[in-house]
């Protein structure tokens, strides 16, 4: 048995799958290990991929050559573009998967990737020599050696499930927890902490009174996630909307003592943005209803996911409170809601490549870094996989900054600010949204991924073709001059002011009341173009002024990112830094002044001190060793 690999990935969830695929596609001999082959890319909670900000992540993963976008395009059962009324930067795509198909499709892609080996075993220990990882050991006492190891253990690591007052060691959805690995990581000096998350019950579709609920349909025109997908339209399944009421709230409030959460048995920190129904009722007592969406888990099952109703109440009470809700009067639970507590690291302990700061060639990605969500996990997995491959081949690291990608924001937030709760990507965390749109992820990222061997030639060509189509159409519109005599009648009809001298189609499109579609009446020679190319062109013309302003903001941001803080800097020696700042700077070891300014506990005065310190050093020539 040849057990030597370039890269080993521990865990085959969303982070692990992308990590292994990235490393293997770039040319590393890669081993992907999972406790159970039936749980590859499993979706143990929501059936949705994407949503606000997360949709951007999926687009970026895809633009970089990742798999998530393609798999969801093949396995979706309902799709929606959210926020369409709020401007192109925050349009967010969300699709619901047939969970089982999603798992099967991802597993198939992994199995068919050259140089990628998928195996079932439980990793129990790491092999570390002289501060560098050398491989892993499993529960059969076998060793697998590698030049780099990526830990993507998710909620399996030290997993503990709570349903009412019952608790037991378990990974997600009844799978085995990885307990031995937890102990051994701690022994290796890797500090672990407890986070918590939860999932609502799955109910039987046949027990629902659908006519009592509001039907929620998918979009008629489906925009794919992947830049590689073309038309993916198909018959979609609906979801259902209903609300809690006073009876629900009363029942829950009277039984709070029955939950492990309120009983204080759970030490882990849960996410504020994804509260249990107990939390919602308790914290927002002025709200007299909370909404819930009932979403199908797949085409070949009657299991329905009850979005918004995560709880750690005992099973009988779960069913009882749901039965107070309109449409759920006869509801029958198939899988109970549960809370799960697990071990994760503090992400400030990893670099911007996701490599551990103290143990070389050991990478962490996904929930193990304190995040929540399939998309956040996949994004980190991809970046860790690519960087592990680059590092062991002596190549330059692949890092995206906050002005280049949501992925950059995600990783910078994690390593700079850390997180006290499972971190979720949100639009509001991103400063340069107008430039980092979901529709231009390929223009931003594909070339860079292509250059490091992460994106394929085919993907790169597709991006170039799309770009060419947009550029050509823009040029055509600039060149097409419309004469007053030919167009003033049309403009009057559109309640747009008339023109005295010829104007280009490009200039006319700057007017808010005129769209590309409306202009077809006077632009008769146009070639048929895809919706997507038209969308790009319109954005470029209509919002040019704003985009220019944002690019200016990015320029300012980059200046501070380029003020490098040398690794040799000794913060405790700098007079004027407050003690808290010294401590934080020592801990995080920021790469640049810009990153330092984002550390919580480092205030503007500290940054001024630091700025002056490095400037003085520079002027004294001490940095030019």
């Amino acid at each position: 048995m040849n057990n030597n690999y370039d890269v080993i990935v521990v865990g085959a969830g969303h982070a692990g799958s992308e990590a292994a695929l990235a490393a293997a596609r770039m040319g590393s001999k890669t081993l992907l290990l999972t406790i159970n082959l039936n749980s590859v890319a499993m979706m143990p909670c929501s059936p949705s991929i994407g949503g606000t900000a997360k949709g951007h992540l999926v687009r970026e993963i895809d633009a970089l050559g990742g798999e998530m976008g393609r798999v969801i395009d093949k396995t979706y059962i309902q799709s929606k573009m959210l926020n369409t009324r709020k401007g192109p930067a925050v349009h967010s795509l969300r699709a619901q998967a047939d969970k089982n198909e999603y798992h099967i499709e991802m597993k198939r892609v992994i199995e068919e990737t050259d140089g990628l080996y998928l195996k079932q075993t439980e990793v129990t220990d790491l092999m570390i020599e002289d501060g560098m990882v050398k491989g892993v050991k499993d529960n059969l006492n076998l060793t697998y050696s590698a030049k780099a190891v990526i830990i993507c253990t998710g909620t399996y690591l030290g997993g503990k499930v709570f349903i009412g007052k019952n608790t037991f060691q378990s990974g997600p959805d009844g799978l085995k927890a990885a307990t031995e690995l937890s102990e051994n990581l701690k022994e290796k000096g890797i500090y672990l902490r407890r986070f918590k998350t939860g999932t609502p019950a799955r109910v039987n579709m046949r027990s629902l009174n659908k006519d009592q609920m509001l039907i929620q349909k998918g979009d008629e025109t489906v925009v794919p996630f992947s830049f590689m997908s073309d038309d993916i339209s198909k018959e979609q399944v609906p979801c259902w909307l209903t609300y809690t009421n006073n009876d629900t709230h009363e029942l829950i409030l009277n039984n709070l003592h029955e939950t492990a959460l309120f009983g204080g048995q759970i030490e882990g920190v849960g996410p504020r943005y994804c509260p249990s129904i107990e939390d919602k009722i308790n914290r927002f007592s002025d709200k007299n209803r909370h909404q819930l969406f009932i979403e199908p888990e797949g085409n070949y099952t009657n299991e329905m996911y009850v979005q918004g109703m995560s709880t750690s109440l005992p099973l009988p009470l779960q069913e009882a409170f749901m039965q107070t809700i309109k449409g759920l009067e006869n509801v029958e639970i198939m899988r109970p809601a549960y809370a799960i507590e697990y071990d994760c690291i503090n992400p400030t302990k990893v670099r911007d490549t996701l490599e551990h700061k103290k143990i070389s060639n050991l990478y962490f990605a996904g929930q193990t870094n304190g995040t929540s969500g399939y998309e956040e996990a996949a994004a980190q997995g991809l970046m860790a996989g690519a960087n592990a491959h680059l590092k062991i081949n002596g190549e330059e690291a692949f890092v995206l900054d906050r002005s280049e990608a949501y992925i950059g924001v995600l990783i910078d937030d994690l390593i700079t600010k850390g997180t006290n709760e499972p971190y979720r990507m949100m639009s509001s965390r991103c400063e340069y949204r107008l430039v980092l749109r979901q529709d231009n992820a390929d223009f931003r990222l594909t070339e860079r991924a292509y250059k490091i061997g992460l994106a394929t030639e085919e993907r790169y060509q597709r991006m170039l073709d799309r770009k060419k189509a947009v550029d050509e159409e823009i040029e055509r519109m600039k060149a097409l001059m419309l004469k007053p005599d030919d167009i003033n009648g049309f403009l009057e009809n559109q309640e747009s002011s008339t023109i005295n001298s010829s104007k280009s189609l490009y200039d006319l499109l700057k007017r808010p009341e005129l769209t590309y579609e409306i202009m077809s009446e006077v632009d008769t020679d146009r070639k048929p173009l895809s919706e997507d190319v038209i969308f790009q062109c319109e954005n470029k013309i209509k919002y040019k002024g704003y985009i220019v302003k944002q690019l200016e903001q990015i320029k300012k941001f980059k200046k501070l990112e380029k003020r490098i803080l040398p690794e040799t800097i000794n913060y405790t020696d700098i007079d004027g830094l407050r003690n808290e700042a010294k401590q934080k700077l020592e801990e995080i070891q920021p790469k640049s002044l810009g990153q330092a300014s984002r550390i919580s506990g480092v205030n503007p005065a500290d940054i001024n001190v630091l700025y002056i310190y490095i400037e003085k050093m520079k002027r004294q020539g001490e940095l030019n060793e």
Partner: protein
Amino acid sequence: MEDTIVAISTPHGEGAIGIVRMSGSKAFDVIEKIFKPGSKTVDDYENRQLIYGHILDNNQVIDEVLVALMKAPKTYTTEDLVEINCHGGSVPIRRILDLILTFDVRMAEPGEFTKRAFLNGRLDLSQAESVMDMISAKTPKGFDVAYNQLEGYLSKKVKKIREDIVDLFSKIEVGIDYPEADIEDITHEEIKEVLEYNLEKVNHMIEGSETGKIIRNGLSTVIVGKPNVGKSSLLNALLKESKAIVTSIPGTTRDVIEEYININGIPLKIIDTAGIRETDNEIEKIGVKRSKVFFNKADLVILVLNNAEELSVEDREIISYIEDKKVIVVVNKTDLENKLDFDALEVLVKDKTILRTSVMNEHGIEAVENEIAKLVYHGEVKSKENDFITNVRHIAALKKAKESIQAAINATDSAIGYDFIEVDIKDAYDYLGEITGETLGEDVIDKIFSKFCLGK
């Protein structure tokens, strides 16, 4: 570790008390060597307690003093700090300073205590700049304004606006991040309302800045009129009133003297055209042509006319030059028989104020002073409210913030998406942050280096 510095912290000249301030790691060592407390030893006293005793040089008493010891880091400079309250007057204070300088302590550069306070993170940028403004303030009023900024008055105002903006962001963002949640989106009108409220605040600060600039740099004033109307006498009378000639430096143009005088707390930089040499040419005599240059530069023109003469061609010509200036028309020599046609003058000068004086008899001077103050404060004297921004960098940042807020407000009038409006709001947020130093930019740092001479 920084070396230890010392300076006399009170103004030069006679005074009841004087303060010698010393900051740095050796401050406590030095004071122990030269100071003998009344009873106990220095160690027996608590931090920040005033200790009575004597300063000794070789057992010889130099002065009877009160000493305050302030332990790092909770001091102005965040270093060990000693303040010696001694008797005023230049002799004792100078002797104490000389004594301290015999130890390993050096004389502080101007503003160096502040520089340390800033570099050590004790003051934010706008506060540090204010101290520098205080040091270079030309009038007590200018000092007050700078002091208010040191107290964080400006920072507080700006921070409040920034808080409002953050709050606005969160309201916009919640709708973006939770499109399907059961919450109402903020409307364009609601966004506009918040922006307009804060735009008004910014405008108010910018308006105050014009006055602030005057308070800091002086109101540049030209006194014009034909020879022998009493220009010099008026100037002398104003000078006499003010008693506080801050400085008297030759102007950039030959023959022109710039005097700083202080009227009701307002510094006037008087460009004294009386210094222009008289020639045979009648027009030149009045100095109209040459004075024209000064008219253009002047914030305020004081036109002096002779009550005992009719309005001449030259008078009319001067009046035509100063039409759109802030002008006080002073008709002097009211002690003599009136020949000047006031009705005609009123028509000529339109809405400008006409005052009557007899400088020789010290009559009407106060009215001139009051009118100057009134003009500076745009007619509403706000002497209590120190809402004046004096720093050029702050004013520039405020103006940029204003533009961005205005752009955002304009955007709310169209149906444009929130993400676009937010671009301008973020710009405004960042510009305001430049004032407090919370937004870090290259230009801010350049400023720091130019103000505090850090380059080596």
